[in-house]
């Protein structure tokens, strides 16, 4: 089977949905971060696929490049936040961080 645009998109969708479910079910803050990484990767797959199979051209790759860079930055900051959270609550359970409850 010769890969085409749709197959790439399906893979991206699976990664995206997995990431979302990961974010929604993991109580571990690191797990949530991993979900985010999955979501971003799903998007990246889409970008690269569009770059190859549509008129988007090089732009798609540039976008995915930026996404990778920003994901790295996001991971760094998020980890710093998680560490802070951990310092304050002595746990990484995100359900404990419900101070914004209305």
């Amino acid at each position, binding site marked *: 089977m010769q890969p085409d645009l749709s197959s790439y998109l399906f893979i991206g969708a699976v990664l995206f949905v997995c990431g979302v479910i990961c974010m929604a079910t*993991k*109580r571990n803050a690191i797990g949530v971060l991993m979900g985010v990484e999955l979501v971003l990767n799903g998007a990246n797959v889409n970008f690269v696929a569009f770059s190859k199979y549509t008129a988007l051209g090089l732009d798609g790759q540039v976008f995915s490049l930026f996404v990778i860079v920003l994901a790295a930055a996001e991971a760094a900051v998020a980890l710093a936040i998680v560490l802070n959270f951990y310092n304050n609550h002595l746990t990484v359970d995100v*359900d404990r961080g419900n101070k914004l409850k*209305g």
Partner: protein
Amino acid sequence: MVGETLKFWLMIAWLLPLAGFVVEIFFGFYSKNPRHSKAAAWCAVGCIGIGFLCSANALRIWGNANDWCVLEVAEHSNAHADPAHSEETHDADKALADHDHSDADSAKGQTAYSGVIYTLGVFGSLEVTLDYYIDSLTLVMFTMVTLIATCIHLFAIGYMSDELTDEYVDHSAHTADGGHVHRPGRFYRFFAFMSLFCFAMLGLVLAGNIFQVFIFWELVGICSFLLIGFYTERKTASDAANKAFIMNRVGDFGFLIGLMVLWTFFGTFRFGDTVVDDQVVDQGLFSMVHRDNTGNLTREEFTGDVLITDTHGHVLTNEDGSNRQIPYYLMVVVGLGIFAGCVGKSAQFPLQTWLPDAMEGPTPVSALVHSATMVAAGVYLAGRFFPMFVQEVLLTIAYTGCITLFLAATIAMVATDIKKVLAYSTISQLGYMMLGIGVFGWAAGLFHLITHAFFKSLMFLCSGSVIYGCHHEQEMPKMGGLLWKMPITAFTMLVGVCAISGFWVPFGLEFSGYHSKDAIVASALAFNYANPAHFLLFLIPLLTAGITAFYMFRMWFYTFVGKPRDQHVHEHAHESPWVMTVPLVILAVFAWFCAYGGESGRLYLMLTGDEPAHVAAGVTAATAGGIVLPGHDAIHAVHGQAGTWALIAALSGALIAYVLYGTSVVNVEEMKRQLAGVHGFLANKWHFDELYDALFMKPAHKVAAFCAWFDGAVFDRILHSAAKATVIVSKWDRVFDENVVDGFVNLIASATQSVGTSLKVVQTGRLRQYVMFIVLGVVALFAVMFTTFPG
């Protein structure tokens, strides 16, 4: 070049007092012992004294520049008409005089200089400048003013010395609880005001345009206001200051109207032509009206409008080619307007009532401001502006002066306050001057102005010395017998009295007043001969000459001879210190001899050096039955006759005074009782104050009261009801605000709050749920999209 040099010296004399003023008013107080320091006084004396030296120097330069031609030429032209001259010299002189007349101008050389000091503003082709106009009259006035002012400043150092204290007790001013006013002395301030006054007066004399005259006119007015109100705690003094200022405003209103007409039709305020390299670059007012050889103004044949000409008598044209002209009646308006200003400043009828009240000021002020210089400014201006006056205006001036001199003299006869006598005498003498100018005796009026300045300032200073010696007692009935208590004062005063009365003394030692008053009376007589209808213009001055002698000697006898009427005053009387008597002696010498030589004397010739051109020949009637103005010849022809009559009148007046007050032949009190009606009428100053009270004050008060009532009853009511309405409206507004607007806002707020409360539940604070919500939201959004836009 001569003009520049003269300007330089006179500017120094003019501006020094201003510098003095600034120093005195701002720094006079900051000395080691401020209230006891005489530094301010010596500063003022120094400024005005140097000013006198500069003026005298300017006079010398001016004379040298034209080889004193004024004295010689005038001597010749006068000589042939002098009746005292013998017949032999007469013919020879006449031939010489005729010769001189023919080329008088070329022989005389330039005697008048004018130019610009500073440009204030330019409006299109019109400009307002500070100019100077220097001729013999300016120089004589400068010298006279600075000399007298120097003497008076010196005198004031002594007179005002009781202000040199930290606590001056004013016995004439009362506080609310009935005590006397205690205040710090104001010695330095007095001299600051005096300096400012000198600056203003000299500026007025130096002024080269009528607007500049007006500026300094107002400035002397404000100085007068400040000085009259010097004892500002006394209600009488502050009232008098207000009165003087307001009365002057009345006259100045006319002055302004005159200025407007001049500006409109002539487009310049300058007196003289501005000459650069023998070319007239800027024409002045005087050369814009041309007089033909009858002495009348050149006029349009049919309309009678006065034509405006260039310096050579050629009619100027407008841009459209028509002749520039001014309606004749507007020339009359100009003259009357300017003269109205003179009436106010010189206290002529009907604005004369402020001057006697002005005696509330310190006596040196009365001597300088209210007798010698400022009030004479009106006469000076009338003389300066003489070329622009037409016959009707001159007649008005003459009658105004005539009424004034008689009115004031009669009041002076019954006045008992020594300064009031002198004040009314001043008004009377100013009336003489105006009369002189009005009857075409231009030189006579100004001559009297100079001589009067000397003897009147002398007499005021003498009265000041008496008042000072008697510890501020001014009422003559409380004096008497002071002759040997204060001999210098008494005898210098006697010189002044003789001078004002116009006594003749053999060997050419006549008192100055004899010459000047004779000149006026002679002019009046010549005018009377030329216009028989106006005989009163001669009779009244003649009669008043007698009255003058009477009240003056009455004052002298009252004060200095006879029995002391108040022992207390008499015992404490003493002669004044040297700073006060030295000026008296100096002024007495001038009062006696300043007019030495009469109309061939230097003073008179200097004055007439720049006489307006048409005066010498006289003016013939422009229309049948019109006014004829006598020339020099006509006046000189009657001089001897007029002088004799005036002397007789004066002598008889003096004699009556001697009989009534010098001896005890007649009981004066008895006479006063019998003539109670007349005496009361005169003592009440012809009821002028009451008349003005009834004519102007009462109606003004009535109108003011009506306005006040109207204000209270109508305006206030409207305002109050408006206020009430506003209150009611605002009450309703408050109700509306609280219920409707606030209710609406509160409704929004509570709605927001309840929505927030209900939505609060959703905010669980659980991160993972939020993710679920997001996903649900996206799914729901897509579901809606697919169902809404299928395919």
